[in-house]
């Protein structure tokens, strides 16, 4: 859909002369600029996700219970918003500066964007619909402890499904069946946990707690999928990503592979090397040439641009 536009970003944005290089290529080959930008993007998680999760926990009645939500929001949200702006700016530059086409045709990047949009929609829903009635629930009313038996039951559901989810990673099986089972267990665990939280705070409206829970979940998945971008499990070039398969379709591999086989633009070989390649930790197939320097790497007398590798980036 947007392949041509993303390709334009990669090849032409910032290229002012015929012999010049686009900003994407320049950042890709920079010694440390891209690393600093991407590192800032990741580290801003501490400021952004950390603060918004404190607000979400308060919305669910778990943390800062003695503080009105409006006061907590007034004090903390400015930090959250500025952090979000920093994340967006650094995220855009990081997207431009590595290989925009790789990101565009990456299922994890797409899922990250989906849940980013979902989180934004949740924020808008909360601010423009749910928050209108905040006079009734800004302060958590005193409440009696709900029936312990029902709470224990749902707690049991959460613990059992979480344990089953962990154990499932040690059980071999068809990847798609196991993935579906794990998603189901994850959802069951989340539902169990949410019900336990909901029963702890009957004085808080369900919609408020639901908004907080959805926000936590959405940003949790944004972080998880963002981390997975670096893994090459479903790259279009891999033999396991067969034409017509779900991943092939979802990642629009037709246009990705047609581009690589054609004469349009400059093919960057390190799209499947270096930073985006799987480390030697046995978690996936190593991509050929992953340790090879970029074609247009720095002159020999200067250290080659540091290539971030997944897995070791934490």
């Amino acid at each position, binding site marked *: 859909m947007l392949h041509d536009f993303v390709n334009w970003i990669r090849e032409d944005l910032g290229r002012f002369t015929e012999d010049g290089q686009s900003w994407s290529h320049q950042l890709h080959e920079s010694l440390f600029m891209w690393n600093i930008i991407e590192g800032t993007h990741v580290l801003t998680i501490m400021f952004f996700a950390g603060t918004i999760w404190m607000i979400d926990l308060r919305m669910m009645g778990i*943390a800062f219970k003695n*503080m009105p939500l409006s006061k907590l929001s007034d*004090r903390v949200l400015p930090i959250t918003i500025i952090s979000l702006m920093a994340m967006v700016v650094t995220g855009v530059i990081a997207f431009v500066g590595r290989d925009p086409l790789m990101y565009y045709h990456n299922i994890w990047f797409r899922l990250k964007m989906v849940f980013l949009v979902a989180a934004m929609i949740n924020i808008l829903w909360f601010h423009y619909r749910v928050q209108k009635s905040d006079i009734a629930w800004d302060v958590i009313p005193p409440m009696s402890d709900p029936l312990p038996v029902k709470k224990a039951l749902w707690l049991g559901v959460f613990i059992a499904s979480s344990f089953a989810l962990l154990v499932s990673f040690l059980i071999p099986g068809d990847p798609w069946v196991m993935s579906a089972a794990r998603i189901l267990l994850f959802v069951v665990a989340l539902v169990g946990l949410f019900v336990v939280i909901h029963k702890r705070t009957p004085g808080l409206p369900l919609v408020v707690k639901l908004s907080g829970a959805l926000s936590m979940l959405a940003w949790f998945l944004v972080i998880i999928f963002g981390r*997975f971008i670096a893994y090459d499990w479903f790259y279009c070039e891999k033999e396991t990503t067969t034409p017509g398969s779900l991943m092939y379709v979802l990642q629009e591999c037709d246009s990705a592979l047609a581009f690589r086989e054609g004469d349009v633009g400059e093919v960057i070989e390190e799209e499947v090397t270096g930073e985006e390649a799987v480390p030697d930790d*046995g978690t996936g197939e190593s991509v050929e040439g992953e340790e090879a320097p970029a074609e247009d790497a720095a002159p020999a007398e200067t250290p080659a641009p540091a290539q971030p590798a997944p897995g*070791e980036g934490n």
Partner: protein
Amino acid sequence: MTFEEIFKNVPGASDFVASMPKIWPISLLQDIYAPFGALHLVGLALMGGAVILLNLRLMGAGLKEEPLPQMERTTRPWFIAGLAIVLFTGIIIGMLNSEKLYNSVPFFIKMTSLASACIFSFGVTNAIAKNDGRTSTGVLVAAGIAFLLWLVALGVLGSDEISAPGLFHPLSAGYAILAIFGVRTRWFAVGAFALLFGGMFVMYWIIGFNTYDPFYDDISRWLTVAGAAVFAALFGWEIYQSRTEASTPTAKLMAMFSVLTWVTVAAGGRWIGFAS
């Protein structure tokens, strides 16, 4: 400086490190490494929120109405939960990549900063908060030890050619904190940051991000040093001018160091990948 250099004369150390991925039950987790890396970031975020809110409160910003002991009680479970996730996943990640990390400079920086940050959080800032902003001799001794460890980490970070640009992260975090809590210096901090580091970005934008010229590298280095000096001056002025406030200069200093050490831990972790 790496752990390999420190322990190279210890018999069997290298062999033990090389054998770590094969130790049960870590050996069972080779194929599911990725979720642990992702959860590591989740733990960092959860812990980061608790650390930032408590330390901002110590500086007299953020949730100012919340009593310090109450603030510490409220944030403590989330700090511990986040730290538990970080440590649990970090041990798994570390053991699965043991040889690589053993020879990694950023990993050494990360571990040294982690020791410093834990001392700051458990022995300094939390103690000050529980004591309603008052410090004790024990707290100051702990702070001294933590600060020295952090200086070691910063020294190694600054002296490693590949990792040195990572100094930007704790420095920018310091400016960000100053912009949040610095009533008198906020706009100076924002302006200085924009001038120095925004200027660095613009400089590379003009000459080309992929310019490899020691001249511009030197400019970047001096801009970073200048940025650190300006930050120290602004922060020092801010806490001096606010010395009569309820939140003491010592508490503010400890709070700032606590945040910066945690950011250094995170920066070291990120630069493991960049330096490999």
